[in-house]
């Protein structure tokens, strides 16, 4: 089980997680990033910057 570092709700992680993966906490809506895989560590994802995009 993985906990949202912000609201402590349970966060579901895909079967094939990768470092740097972006996910959203379904409870509080915050964007999270998988910081490490072993063990899985979650942190708040960085805010979008002006030059982000396609």
């Amino acid at each position, binding site marked *: 089980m993985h906990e949202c570092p912000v609201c402590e709700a349970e966060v579901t992680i895909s079967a094939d997680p990768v470092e740097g993966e*972006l996910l959203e906490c379904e409870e509080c809506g915050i964007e999270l990033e998988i910081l490490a895989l072993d063990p899985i560590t979650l942190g708040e*994802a960085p805010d979008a*910057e*002006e*030059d982000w*995009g396609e």
Partner: protein
Amino acid sequence: MRVGFLHSLIRRDEKLLIAELRRRRDMEIVFLDDRRLVFDLETRPPVDLVLERSINHSRAMHALRLFEGVGTACVNAYEVARRCGDKILTAASLRDHGVPQPEVRIAFTPESALAAVEELGYPAVLKPAVGSWGRLLSRVNDRDAAETVLEHKAILGSYHHSIFFVQQYVEKRGRDIRAFVVGDECVAAIYRTSDHWITNTARGGRASNCPVTPDLAGISLRAAQAMGGGVLAVDLFETGGGFLVNEVNYTMEFRNSIDVTGVNIPERIVSYLRRAVP
């Protein structure tokens, strides 16, 4: 073949590419997180090719230049990223290659920009030269609005917001087109439909399949070639007089376009990588 996967945050698009790379027996992924890289101008990364999927334009562009500097092939190439990432360079490249686009004006002061808007007529669209996802775009319907936006940009923005890129507003009846180009093929296209004049899917535009007609494929490939070619998403408007190319994106987002087009876009991208290694 070792594929360097240049990234920062990994979104669904990147996950789909990673899954596709992992499916291939002859490909191995080397993750290159742009937040951890240090370049020394000499060391070659242990890869045959870099696939650029970074969410930051400045990081992507500089990293591509540095990788190419030590002889590593990149998809997309540095020059392509540079041209696509800056709407002024995009407009100039499209014009160099005779690809039709909306009327544009570029100006460097609020006063000259206002004159440019007045010359194009209303409504006009002001865009940051560097930026994406439809952010900080303004449609100005009259002189008062133009003056206000230009003053705000000049006073509140950083220096690059005083490089003014102005486009004629194209009446597009609620939708525009995004065409996906992979190498020398236009593999798929979608309509992006919205009640808002900004139709990006990142801003709530709905994606639906758009048939790739010979005309659409033709102009999309010409636009991609004008930028230097590679894996590119070409945004277009349909007008009575034919298609106009609005812009070209070099780190294309395709996650909302696979189901609606029925085309496995990440599979097409990964297959292209073999052809991109010299």
